């Protein structure tokens, strides 16, 4: 197959796969949460509720699209798309198996950070354009939180980068052939914990979901959105979570390595990403939300110095081993 054709087909396949997985990830989360809360969860639409996400999507498509009279229309209308795009782009550099991905850049992880940091623009546009006080407060919180947690997120994710010695995601995955980085003594576990924590916060999931905070700000920045625009924001959020789950599985859980033939690799990768997703979900449904000042304090006073120190320690270990240490 000529390379130009691959470049056209691969994004199309990945994009649709992501949308498909995101749709069903919502069902997975609802079922998982229901079991935690001694409920059954969706059960009526299709066998065991398997068609529920499709029914939800159809419902959202048929909803009336309401634009508040006082909204800043261009900003309001553009926000869901500006939010969704970076959330989709983060999948571009993720290799799903050796050689199976859209673009295996030599700075793949840097691309991931840069793109996922851009979603804040969409969030703030949504909050500002809605011309709603709840949405505005939520947008202010969003800027605070996302900036505070992108730093520890990056530092935690850089630890595997140092261990592997490459920014290319496929190299990082290959470097874990013998030992997954989560099992790397001490450093691996600490970095993994920091990564999961900052992922939860950077994804705005409970207990760090102060943007949405429905008991205070009703629904935060998306309070005025309905129908397909709401669906786009929702899709973007879950795509971001899914992307972070894939990244976590790639950085710490050895990506596609696993028993069985090689073609099972993507299956293993998906399984590990789902494990990461359920870990985040488990945290989400177990804790109460913390306050905005406490969230910022946790980031700047604890998580950021800790991840920085960890990064330094990792660098020392890497240099020491390279110079013939044990």
């Amino acid at each position, binding site marked *: 197959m000529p390379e130009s054709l691959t470049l056209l087909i691969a994004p199309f396949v990945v994009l649709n796969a992501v949308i498909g997985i995101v749709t069903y990830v919502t069902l997975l989360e609802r079922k998982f*949460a229901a079991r*935690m*809360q*001694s*409920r059954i969860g969706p059960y009526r639409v299709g066998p065991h509720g398997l068609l529920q996400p499709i029914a939800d999507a159809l419902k959202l498509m048929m909803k009336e699209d309401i634009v508040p*009279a*006082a909204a800043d229309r261009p900003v309001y209308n553009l926000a869901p798309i500006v939010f969704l795009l970076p959330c989709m782009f983060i999948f571009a550099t993720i290799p799903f198996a050796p050689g199976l991905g859209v673009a295996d850049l030599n700075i793949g992880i840097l691309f991931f950070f840069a793109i996922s940091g851009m979603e804040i623009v969409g969030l703030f546009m949504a909050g500002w354009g809605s*011309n*709603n*006080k*709840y949405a*505005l*407060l939520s947008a*202010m*919180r969003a800027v605070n939180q996302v900036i505070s947690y992108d730093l520890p997120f990056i530092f935690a994710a850089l630890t595997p980068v140092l261990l592997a010695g490459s920014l290319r995601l496929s190299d990082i995955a290959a470097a874990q052939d013998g030992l997954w980085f989560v099992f790397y003594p001490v450093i691996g576990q600490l970095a993994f914990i920091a990564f999961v924590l900052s992922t939860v916060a950077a994804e705005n999931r*409970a*207990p760090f*979901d*102060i943007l*949405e*905070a*429905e*008991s*205070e*700000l*009703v629904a935060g920045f998306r309070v005025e959105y309905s129908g397909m625009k709401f669906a786009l924001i929702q899709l973007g959020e879950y795509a971001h979570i899914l992307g972070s789950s894939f990244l976590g599985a790639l950085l710490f859980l050895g990506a596609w390595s696993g028993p069985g033939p090689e073609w099972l690799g993507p299956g293993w990768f998906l399984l590990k990403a789902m494990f990461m997703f359920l870990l985040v979900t488990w945290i*989400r*449904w*177990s*804790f*109460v*939300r*913390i*306050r*905005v*000042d*406490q969230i910022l304090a946790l980031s700047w006073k604890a998580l950021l110095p800790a991840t920085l120190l960890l990064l330094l320690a990792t660098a020392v270990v890497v240099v020491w081993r390279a110079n013939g240490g044990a």
Partner: protein
Amino acid sequence: MTTASPARLEVDYAGSERLTMNMGPQHPSAHGVFRAVLTLEGETVVGVDAVIGYLHRCHEKLAETLTYAQYPSIASKTDYVAAMTSEFAYVRAAETIGKIEVPKRAQYLRVMAAELQRVASHLLWLGTWCMDMGGALGGGATIFLYCIRERELILDLFESLVGARLLYGFYQVGGVRYDLPAGWTATCRETVDLIDRRIGEYESMLDDNPFFMARCQGVGVISRELAEDVGISGPLLRGSGVAWDLRRADPYSSYEDFQFLVPVESSGDCFARYGVRMVEFRESLKIVRQVLDGLPEGPVSSRPGLKSVAQTRIPKGEAYARIEGPRGEVGCYLTADGSAKPYRMKWRGASFSNLSVLPHIIPGHKVADVVAIMGSVDPVFGEVDR
């Protein structure tokens, strides 16, 4: 914010702009229809204006048109989360004026229903409070669903006792309406034991939870002086270091027969109120067990066989009866004119008095604390507005 309304900009001395935000009357965390007009400086609340009255249903006027036999069922609707307690206060007021004896068995059954109701009400409080802090899409909802699961068991007990699940009409002037059905005692014992165990589970889920502690320790402190000045009662008052429980201070309906603890915490914050209520769960279950153990035989009403609604006549006089409800002192002031209907009736709702503390403690906190404080006050708006 809208272009239609005239812009009114308030600027404080430090030069930062103030924002007025409406919370309620329709708001996901408002426990009913409560409107708080918050003045914000960024995230910090500098002023709060509490507006009530959205659920006013003329309860006190309605009482004048209903007979003593009819009104207890309606009284349940004032505090619909703890329906048993308002009935209790009403019939006690009527009995005080009429000097009507209540048989010992009926007194015990009244205590039992009131204590089960306290547990059910506290369960709903714990669930909704955690949902306020944790969100309907977060860990709070998990606690909420656990609490609702246990509350269902108590509602099932009430259903087999009275036939209703929310508004009971169990109390009657002179006694209670129904005796225990066969097998009820055994079910009740099982339920009480189960809930006792489950409350331990909640405590282990919340007490060691750093996020939960961060949200309620040192938040919404009510000092002892403030508590006494604004006249709050119930768990709020006991959370502020005042050992005042009507069941102990002014025993009614044979409460002096039972052994129980009145929990008091001195710190006065949301966590203290949580601590008080968590002990009250256990103490209420303890009282229910004592009632089941020592339930005397005999009639359940001193006026059995009353069929017509006009047969209960109360002689001329007036009285104030108060009981310790789940939210504090529930009082009923009744004036009788010798007919089958009261001349005038006045409620003292615990939630109404407790709400008055909010403007004193909310300013200075963050927006997120407003819902935590409001949840810890545990208002029921049926009782506030009546």
